[in-house]
């Protein structure tokens, strides 16, 4: 790989005690233009390879991104911090499938392995991890990233190195930046978008007469993406956002969301749509119920439904009180529905391999779920990735990736919806599912009116 990339910004982007106009503007411009590409970030991610033998990067350095023994995919995801459950679940599902593939001879004799780095769901470490994956590890492709604020910052890097044909496959985010120009051509998505998820929630809520919809969101690119989706969906119904409240990324369940609840109580909403991660959204749902805000509280798929439910119910005598108003949007079908072939396959492989995040990456205790929407999504991501790699043939080369993925038409992943890709179609699935909590688990919501009307 021929590339030169010298860090230009200071490691932390901060000013000294005395700033000059020039230095300030330099910092500002660096934040705007250079920071997405710089290799000097605040927190260094820790790397671990899993799924195959240790790769020889010198072989991969030739430009194919694959050796005769293995194909290495690069992952930067949250394995630490309040959102570590998201990266962990997604990884477990993907590895269940890749372990199965590797145990059965791999793809054209090559094992598929993941080169993992932890970014803690923070943009700067994610940028640093991506640079390392591309320039040092020389991975074949990027795969299974987690989060909008992280992915949004990585997209300019993909554009910068577009000649290398390193694409980002199936990030765990439904945001628009990787679906639209100028960066849409560098990423392929499997899941439905946040716009589709928020439109589904708004349409159903409006249909049952809940027109005053407020938003509680994470104040970053992810939250803004969902906020924009709700706003656009309401606009189609001639409505505007009833109100909004925000929280900072990284908020824990132990934190208070009372101020946010009080702000939204002030606008008397009929429903609240949350665009956040499970710890903060669970804290909000808890405080909303405690303060008497008894309206439907909807969450997007990214929230991590099982972790949300666990936080709200663990150790609670009256857990149902906190969960009866929850509506969670999902982008994969229920993992309880074993009539779906892919779900049955997922459950079998999860039971067989029970993949765990490598010990080197585990900083905080996390008890994974036997099954989750996140790991099912990771499983489907891996299954489609495996199909793309198969279509590359015996000599996998990044240059053939687009052709391989564009050849996928009406592909049966094993769920009811078939998958197609094309130059103007870079998102495989369009379906959105809605779930509510019953008997301590998420089940499909069939009748909105009966439940929330």
């Amino acid at each position, binding site marked *: 790989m021929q590339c030169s990339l010298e860090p230009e910004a200071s490691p932390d*982007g*901060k*000013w000294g*005690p*005395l*700033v*000059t*106009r020039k230095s*300030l*503007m330099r*910092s*500002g*411009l660096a*934040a*705007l233009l250079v*920071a997405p590409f710089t290799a000097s970030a605040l927190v260094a991610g820790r790397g671990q390879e899993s799924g195959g033998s240790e790769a020889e990067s010198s072989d991969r350095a030739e430009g194919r991104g694959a050796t005769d023994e293995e194909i290495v995919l690069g992952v930067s995801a949250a394995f630490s911090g309040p959102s570590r459950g998201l990266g962990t679940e997604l990884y477990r599902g993907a590895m269940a499938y890749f372990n199965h593939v590797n145990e059965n001879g791999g793809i054209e004799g090559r094992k598929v392995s993941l080169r993992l780095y932890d970014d803690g769901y923070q*943009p700067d470490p994610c940028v640093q991890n991506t640079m390392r994956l591309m320039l040092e590890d020389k991975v074949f492709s990027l795969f299974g990233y987690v989060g*909008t*604020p992280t992915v*949004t*910052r990585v997209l300019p890097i993909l554009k910068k190195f577009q000649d290398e044909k390193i694409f980002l496959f199936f990030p765990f985010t439904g*945001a*628009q*930046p990787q679906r*639209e*120009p100028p960066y849409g051509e560098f990423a392929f998505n499997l899941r439905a978008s946040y716009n589709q998820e928020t439109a589904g929630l708004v349409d159903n809520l409006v249909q049952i007469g809940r027109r005053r919809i407020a938003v509680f969101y994470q*104040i*970053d*690119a*992810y*939250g*803004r*993406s969902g*906020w*924009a989706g709700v706003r656009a969906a309401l606009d189609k119904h001639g409505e505007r956002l009833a109100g*909004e*409240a*925000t*929280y*900072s990324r990284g908020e824990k369940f132990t934190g208070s*969301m009372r*101020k*946010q609840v009080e*702000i939204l109580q002030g606008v008397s909403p009929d429903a609240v749509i949350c665009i956040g991660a499970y710890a903060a959204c669970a804290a909000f749902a808890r405080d909303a119920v405690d303060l008497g805000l008894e309206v439907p509280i909807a969450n997007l798929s990214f929230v991590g439904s099982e972790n949300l439910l666990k936080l709200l119910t663990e150790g609670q005598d009256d857990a149902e009180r906190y969960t009866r108003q929850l509506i969670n949007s999902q982008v994969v079908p229920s993992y309880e529905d074993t009539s779906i072939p892919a779900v049955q396959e997922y459950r079998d492989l999860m039971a067989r391999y029970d993949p765990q995040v490598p010990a080197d990456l585990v900083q905080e205790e996390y008890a994974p779920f036997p099954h989750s929407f996140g790991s099912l999504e990771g499983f489907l991501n891996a299954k489609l990735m495996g199909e793309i790699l198969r279509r590359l043939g015996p000599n996998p080369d990044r240059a053939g990736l687009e052709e391989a993925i564009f050849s996928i038409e009406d592909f049966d992943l094993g769920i009811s919806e078939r998958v197609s890709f094309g130059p103007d179609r870079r998102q495989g699935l369009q379906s959105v599912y809605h779930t509510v909590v019953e008997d301590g688990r998420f089940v499909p919501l069939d009748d909105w009116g009966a439940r929330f009307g």
Partner: protein
Amino acid sequence: MRIRRLFKWTRFGIFAVFGLIVLSTSILCIYTVDTELSAEYEVNTQNIAKTIADSSAGILLNQNLATLQSLVDQFLEVQGIRYIYITSETGEFLAHTFVPGIPEEILESEHSNTAPVERSLPGMGDFIEVGSPILAGVAGTVHVGMDLDVVALKIQRAIGQQVYLISVMLLIAVLASIWFVNLAAKPLGELLAYAVELAKDGENDELGERDILARDDEVGHLARLFLHVSRQGGGRGLPAGTSGTE
């Protein structure tokens, strides 16, 4: 015997002059640093607002609000910048950085205004807010809030460093001047003591053998003169080695 009274006014004068220098230098320094840095921060904030405005025009036209928020978040990492918000041409908030919500004062403000304005936001602090129009205002306005407490802290630190340096220099200068004065006063004290002894017992031969008489300076000359006057009993004629013009 020490010569205190002779140099009392000299010491006072040294303190007064150096104190005046320190005071005037400090006042000038405080004024200059405060004025210049305050203006610098305001200009910097305006430049940041303009940079965001220039960068966000294309993003806004594509309605890519996630990217817009990402852009805003990156500038929030700049020290002293506490909030940024972008409003559309109709006044709708398209991106911002407020937690847990947009303050009432900002909701009610005139969003197309780009002139610097000082704000005091409950629970957040005091700010200077500047704005910059996007596409001459037809696409909206960027507003950037610089924390005045941070600016004040920076200014205080800069002033403090300079005043500290000046004060240290004053202290060193005063101590040095006292040492020099004492250095000059010591032989005069010896001369005074010698003169007193001469007055008491001028005929004592031992007084003609003192070290002070061997000094090759004004004190030695005076000591020899005092001895001569004492021995001559009136001062007619000068002793050898004593020049009247010195």
